C-alpha cells in the first residue's frame, strides 16, 4: 500500500469528486435528442411542460433515432427519442460505458403510413407489394394494380428509426432499391410525394397532410386498414409501432417530472393533438 500513501487518498477522492461534480449538466436543463418523427411531438411536449415549469429548460433536437441513441451512449443527451427499439449492439455499448441496461419508456404509438400522391388512383396496398416496390423488384404501378407509370420511391436516411423500422418490418431486412431517393426528414418525404404524381413514401402519421394515405393489407387476403386510433392500438394495422424515450438510468429530478408528465393524461393529450396515438 506504499503507493497509496505516496499519492494520497485525499488527492484521489478530490479527483473523483471533481469528475462527479464538474461534469454534471447545468441544473434545470434537460436535453432531448433523436427521432425526426418525434421531433414535433417532443417540441409540443416541451412547450406545454415549460409553461407549467418555467424553471426548467427543455432542449429538443432531431437528427434521427440512430443519432439520438449515439448521443445517449456518448452522454450528450439526457433523453433519447426513438421511433425504433434499441438494437442489441447499441445496448451492449450502453452497458460497457455506464454499467446499465438503460431505461425504455414507450411514450406514444404511431401508425407508420404509406404516402402516395393525392392524384394516384391506388387506395390500398399489401405488405408484400410494398416490399416489392421498395426493394426495386416492381418498378411500375400497373404491376400492383395502378396506372401504367414508373414508381418514384422516396425513402429516409439510414440514421432514421423510421428507415430501420420499415426495413425490418416491410423489407424483412432486404436492401432498399438503389433508385430510392433519400430524404432528410418525414416532412421532406411528404412534400416530395405531394408533388410527384407517381411517388410513394412512408413516415409518421402526424405528417400525413396534403397527400393520400394508403390502406395497408397484412397479406393479399386481408382487408386494407388505415392507420387510425383503433387499428393502431389494437395492432390490426400492420405497421403500428411504439415511440420511445430512452434514458441511461431511472429518471430523477426534472427529467422524472417531465417523463411523468408526458405519460399523464395531459401529456398523452398532446400526442393526440399532434397526430399520433396515446400509449394508454
Amino acid at each position, binding site marked *: 500500500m506504499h503507493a497509496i500513501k505516496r499519492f494520497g487518498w485525499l488527492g484521489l477522492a478530490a479527483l473523483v469528486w471533481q469528475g462527479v461534480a464538474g*461534469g454534471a449538466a447545468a441544473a434545470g436543463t434537460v436535453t432531448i435528442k433523436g427521432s425526426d418523427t418525434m421531433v414535433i411531438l417532443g417540441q409540443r411536449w416541451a412547450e406545454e411542460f*415549460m409553461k407549467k415549469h418555467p424553471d426548467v429548460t427543455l432542449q429538443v433536437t*432531431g437528427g434521427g433515432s440512430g443519432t439520438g441513441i449515439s448521443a445517449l451512449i456518448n452522454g450528450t443527451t439526457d433523453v433519447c427519442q426513438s421511433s425504433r427499439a434499441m438494437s442489441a449492439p447499441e445496448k451492449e455499448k450502453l452497458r460497457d460505458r*455506464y*454499467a*446499465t441496461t438503460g431505461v425504455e419508456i414507450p411514450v406514444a404509438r404511431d401508425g407508420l403510413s404509406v404516402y402516395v400522391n393525392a392524384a394516384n388512383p391506388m387506395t390500398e396496398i399489401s405488405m408484400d407489394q410494398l416490399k416489392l416496390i421498395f426493394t426495386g423488384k416492381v418498378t411500375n404501378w400497373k404491376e400492383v394494380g395502378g396506372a401504367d407509370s414508373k414508381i418514384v420511391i422516396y425513402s429516409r436516411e439510414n440514421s432514421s428509426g423510421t428507415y430501420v423500422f420499415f426495413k425490418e418490418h416491410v423489407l424483412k431486412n432486404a436492401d432498399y432499391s438503389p433508385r430510392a*431517393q433519400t430524404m432528410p426528414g418525414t416532412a421532406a418525404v411528404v412534400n416530395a410525394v405531394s*408533388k410527384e404524381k407517381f411517388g410513394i413514401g412512408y413516415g409518421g402519421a402526424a405528417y400525413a397532410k396534403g397527400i393520400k394515405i394508403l390502406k395497408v393489407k397484412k397479406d393479399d387476403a386481408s382487408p386494407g386498414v388505415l392507420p387510425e386510433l383503433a387499428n393502431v392500438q389494437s395492432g390490426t394495422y400492420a405497421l403500428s409501432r411504439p415511440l420511445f424515450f430512452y434514458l441511461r438510468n431511472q429518471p430523477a429530478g426534472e427529467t422524472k417530472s417531465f417523463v411523468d408528465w408526458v405519460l399523464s393524461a395531459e401529456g398523452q393529450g398532446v400526442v393526440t393533438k399532434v397526430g399520433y396515438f396515446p400509449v394508454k
Partner: protein
Amino acid sequence: MAPAVAPGSEPPSSSPSPPQDPAPAEGGPTEARPAPAPTPPAASDQQGGAPQPASPAGDDPGAVPPPEPTDVRLGNLEGKVGGLDEAASATRSIVDRLNRIKLSGYIQGRYEWHGDSSDTVDASGNSKVKSQFLVRRGRLKVIYDGTNAEYLLQIDATPSGVVLKDAEATFVDTWSPFGLRLTVGQFKWPFGYEILQSSGDREMPERALVIRSLFPGERDRGVRLTARYEWLRFAAALVNGNVPNGTTDRNDFKDLVGRVGGDFGWIVGGLSGYYGRRLDGKPATALTTVWTDKNGDKMLTPDEVTTTPASPATYQSYGLLRLGADVQTYFDIPGLGGLALKGELIYAKDSNRALGTTPANPCLDRTQLGWIITAVQNLGDYAGLVVRVDSFDPNVTLALPDSCTLDIAKGLGDRVNTYGFGALIFPSSNVKATFTYEHVAEQSITIANDVFTAQLQARF
C-alpha cells in the same frame, strides 16, 4: 418559453399541421429525379424564349428596365433549385459512401509505479527499473460497412513498434434472422468475457493474470462464425492455435474455440470451450567447450573446461483444454448509477505432454484454475469506482497422481491472487482517466510487487 431547437432539426410549428419543408433534395445514387415543378411559360425563358416586346427602356438608355414578371422569376429560381438538387445528389452519394467508413481509435498514456522496481540491473545486465511512463496502447481501427461485407483492420502503434491486432474479412448475412457473420482473418478468441472486452472499455488497466497466462495476446488466425437470435449468442472458430504474433502455424492441428451464451439485458452469461494442441520446439545445439580461467593464471587446466555435448532438436507436444463460464449482471442503483457485477471461471488442462519421442508423462500434465470477480459502480455519468479480485493457480496440486515427485508438477504454493481497486473519471465521452492500485499476493512467498497505475485515455 419556447423549446430550444438546434440547427438542422425540423422547425417547430404552432399547430398540429406538419412543417412545410422546402423542395425535397435528391437522394438516390442513380436515377435521382427532382420533384416536379410547374413549367414556366415559354415566353419567360430569357435564354431561348420568344423576344420580349419593345419597351420604353429601349429608347431611353438611362431608364431602369421594368422588373421581370413573377412567373419568370419563379421559373428561374426553380431552375436554379433543380441545379442545386443535382449537385446535392452527387454530394450525398459521395457522403453516403464515406459514411460507411468508421474510423476509431484510442491512446492510453500512463504512469506505472511498481513495488519491485529497482535502480539496479539483473544478472544479465538488464535494468530492473519498472516504474515509468508508457504509451501502453495506440490503437487505430478502420471498419468499412459494405453490402454483405465488413472490412476491419486494427493496429497498435507503441514505442515497441506497430503490431497488427485485428484483420477481419467478414461476410454478413442480411437474409436470415440469425445475423450470421463469417470471418476469416485475425481476431480475438471467442471465449469468456474479459478476452472479448475491449481494452478501451475495460476498467482495470490490464486483463487478469489468468487471462494473460492462458490466452496471451487474446488473438489468433482462422475462421469464425457468429450468430445471434433473440437472446441467444453463439460464436465458434477454427484457429491455428499459435502463440501470439507467430507468423506460421506450428502444427497441423487446428484448434477449436467457441462460446454459447445468452443476453437477457440485465444478466448476460455463457459457457466457453477451447480444444487444441501445442507443439513447442527446442532447436538443436552444437558441442560447446568453454574455458574459464578460474585462478587467473592464464593456464588451461582440465578443471577449468566445461563441455556441453551436442543435442538434437526436440519438441514437446501436448493437448490443451480450456473450459470457462462467465456471467455479468447490471443494476441501476437510484441516485448513484449503474452497478455491474461480473464473474468468470476458467479451468485449463495441458495433458499428454510428450518430449520428443518419449512417451507422455502424466506427471507433466498441468491443471490450471483461475477466476475473476469485478464490480463497477458508476457515480453519475462522469465517474465510477472499480474493484477486481482475481486468482490464478498454474498447478492445481490435487489433480496429479500421487506417484509424481516433481515439485513443479505438484504445484506447491504457486497460486497468485490479485486485489485491485480504482477510480474512473469521464470528463467527456472522449476521455477517461483511470487510477488503480493492485496488490499482488503470491501464495508462498512475499514480494513487494504491487502496482499503481495512473492512465489517461483519449479516444475518437
